[in-house]
């Protein structure tokens, strides 16, 4: 009897672990606690809700159930690396760290472990050179694209002439905040505007000096590369000094609802970039039906439809499409990280496909290749309507400045390749 029982237990364990191994494991390096929780929570809610919806509605991707592995990073680089190390052994297919600091640490690790990284609109910009960064993808856009999109928007607003305009950049004094400076300096030379970077120290709770300087120097436009409390304080300080909000433009990490609501009506007119459109998408009804109404919402369910929730959902959709493409290429449902990398490199997101997924026009159309892991780089400009309490898209997708950023990407990635001893080329397995 004892032997029979043991055999039964062993068999059941093998079956259970066998089915667990067959899952599509997608880690979610989230941050729901700490100083940056207000941004991390809605993103993670959107990311997880969409994947849960795929499980509930479609049985996962290609018939394979998705297993989400959430790990709390607190937006802390060390914890992020710990999360990576503790989850990669579970068969993780793709990592989206949602932090530039964590991304920089994971690039060599993920490359060595052959697990793809997707850093959507953050991380190391030159990773869009796929011949150097075989395992890193930053589609659909990166920071340098964002700088180009903003300048193109301002050119459009000023009849194509920014000569002698004063443009200041208020930036988080970190690797993330400094990312657009090179591009903006290059664009300042081309278009003849005066560029002034103004640093704000972490966390950005106190910015009086920076805004007094802006009040003294009265630039025509202020751009912002902020995250966390820096955004809310900057918007409040801009309102305090009476800076015209319509001339204050943040990047896509400085343009969520919680960035503007603390300043109340004073934030009306503030603009920001967005890499994804917002609005009432048909997919939200599906998420409500299959996830929220079943009591499986991530978090308290209150973030559905917000800017960062939508972006998290968009990120999950891009992971889904890459996995589906990998399944198609390799003819198996139970794909490996190496196969997912192939799927990411062969990814093509069309308008029809986005509509089919219930996310019409959520992002720009783009395709990925061995050489280009960065996507199209397009972005929209949105404006905060404090009266209605919502973001309103002001533009269609705007082109970046590939002719300016392209050489910078080549230069930076070549330097990385030299330093890391990488011979550029497409991944050959």
């Amino acid at each position, binding site marked *: 009897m004892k032997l029979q029982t043991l055999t039964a237990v062993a068999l059941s364990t093998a079956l259970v672990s066998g089915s667990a191994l067959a899952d599509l494991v997608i880690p979610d390096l989230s941050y*729901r*606690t*700490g*100083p*940056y*929780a*207000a941004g991390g*929570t809605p993103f993670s809610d959107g990311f997880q809700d969409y994947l849960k919806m795929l499980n509930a509605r479609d049985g996962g991707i290609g018939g394979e159930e998705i297993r989400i592995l959430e790990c709390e990073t607190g937006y802390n680089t060390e914890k992020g690396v710990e999360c990576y190390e503790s989850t990669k052994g579970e068969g993780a297919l793709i990592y989206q760290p949602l932090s530039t600091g964590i991304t920089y640490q994971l690039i060599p690790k993920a490359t060595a472990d052959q697990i793809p990284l997707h850093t959507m609109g953050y991380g190391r910009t030159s990773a869009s050179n796929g011949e150097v960064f075989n395992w890193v993808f930053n589609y659909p856009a990166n920071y340098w694209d964002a700088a180009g999109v903003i300048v193109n928007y301002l050119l459009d607003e000023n009849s194509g002439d920014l000569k002698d305009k004063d443009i200041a950049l208020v930036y988080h*004094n970190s690797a993330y905040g400094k990312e657009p400076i090179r591009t903006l300096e290059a664009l300042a030379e081309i278009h003849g505007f005066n560029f002034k*970077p*103004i*640093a*704000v*120290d972490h*966390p950005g*709770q*106190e910015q*009086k*000096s*920076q805004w*007094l*300087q802006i*009040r*003294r120097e009265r630039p025509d436009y202020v751009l912002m590369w902020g995250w*966390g*409390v820096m955004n*809310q*304080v900057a918007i*409040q300080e801009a*309102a*305090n*000094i*009476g800076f015209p909000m319509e001339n204050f433009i943040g990047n896509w990490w400085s343009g969520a609802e*919680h960035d503007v*609501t*603390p300043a*109340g009506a*004073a934030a009306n007119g503030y603009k920001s970039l967005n890499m994804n459109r917002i609005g009432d998408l048909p997919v939200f009804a599906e998420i409500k039906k299959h996830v929220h109404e079943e*009591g499986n919402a991530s*978090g*308290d369910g*209150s973030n559905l439809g917000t800017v960062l929730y939508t972006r998290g959902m968009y990120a999950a959709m891009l992971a889904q499409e890459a996995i589906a493409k990998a399944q198609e290429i390799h003819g198996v449902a139970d794909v490996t990280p190496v196969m997912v990398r192939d799927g990411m490199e062969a990814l093509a997101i069309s308008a029809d496909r986005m509509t089919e997924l219930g996310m019409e026009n959520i992002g720009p159309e783009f395709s990925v290749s061995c050489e280009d892991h960065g996507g199209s780089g397009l972005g929209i400009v949105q404006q905060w309507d404090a009266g209605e309490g919502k973001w309103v898209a002001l533009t269609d997708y705007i082109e970046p400045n590939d002719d300016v950023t392209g050489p910078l990407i080549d230069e930076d990635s070549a330097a990385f390749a030299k330093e890391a001893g990488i011979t550029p080329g497409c991944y050959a397995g």
Partner: protein
Amino acid sequence: MSADFLYGIEVILNGLMAGVMYALVALGFVLIFKASGIFNFAQGVMALFAALTLVGIMEGQVPFSHLINEVFGTEVHHFGWHVPALLAIAITLFVMVAFAWAVQKFLFKHLVGQEPIILFMATIGLAYFLEGFGDLMWGSNIKTLNLGLPQGGSRVIEDMTAKLGGDDFYGFFIDKLDIVATGVAIVLVLSLICFSQFTKQGRAMRAVADDHQAALSVGISLNFIWVLVWSLAGLVALVAGVMWGAKSGVQFSLSLIALKALPVLMLGGFTSIPGAIVGGLIIGVGEKLFEYLIGPMVGGATENWFAYVLALAFLVFRPQGLFGEKIIERV
């Protein structure tokens, strides 16, 4: 007068105002350190917790709603009412007193006689516990503080002073919130001084601060005094949380304001209430002036760095800080 000179004065004025905001945080540290010798690492988190509690009560939020919904499968988030600000402040103060009692009862009562480093480590643990507890109780989203505090530059001051300079001078910018914070800080400090000088409990508090054992020998309850001191630190934390939270919304980064108080304490001394104020003002003016004059030459963002350098310089010449008690140990 030249615009540069006038803008220099504007920077000094704003530095003084910023210094008051730093001093508000530093005061809480001083109160506890003076009475019990504990460097309370959790003071910043207490400011966050107090502000979270105030907004949660005002908005009629159900505490621990996420946990309740998870356990019982319910969907409760709000009571459906809004509590008037004054009543909400009173309830929050009650919560902070309850917190002070709990800290004494469940933590420090068991650590009597331990080394200062043990007590300090305990406050680090307390900070992490309270941060997680606040998250569980009120959630991690950013909350808007609607106390009706004025925001924005004072137009009156701006218009009155605009004539002092030429066309390139736009008048002094003084934030109305900073003016209110200064007024509140003055009232708070005067109240604390009056309390410690003219009330029985205040005198008992000072006696404990001077010599625990002597105070105990004349019948003063150390437990009561420590609960009282932690309650007062809770009151100071609420004021600091409200003032800082009004700028940025109430969010978890508020706990980091403690970092702004450390150089103030190093400079002013850990045991002096006037020291916290003067230290705050010196740090505020010093860092703002340095950023204005030297910052542009070195890439800016010098304030955090300079505050600590200034405090370190003071430490070298006066280790007990400007107003701290000189420690003489006989060997």
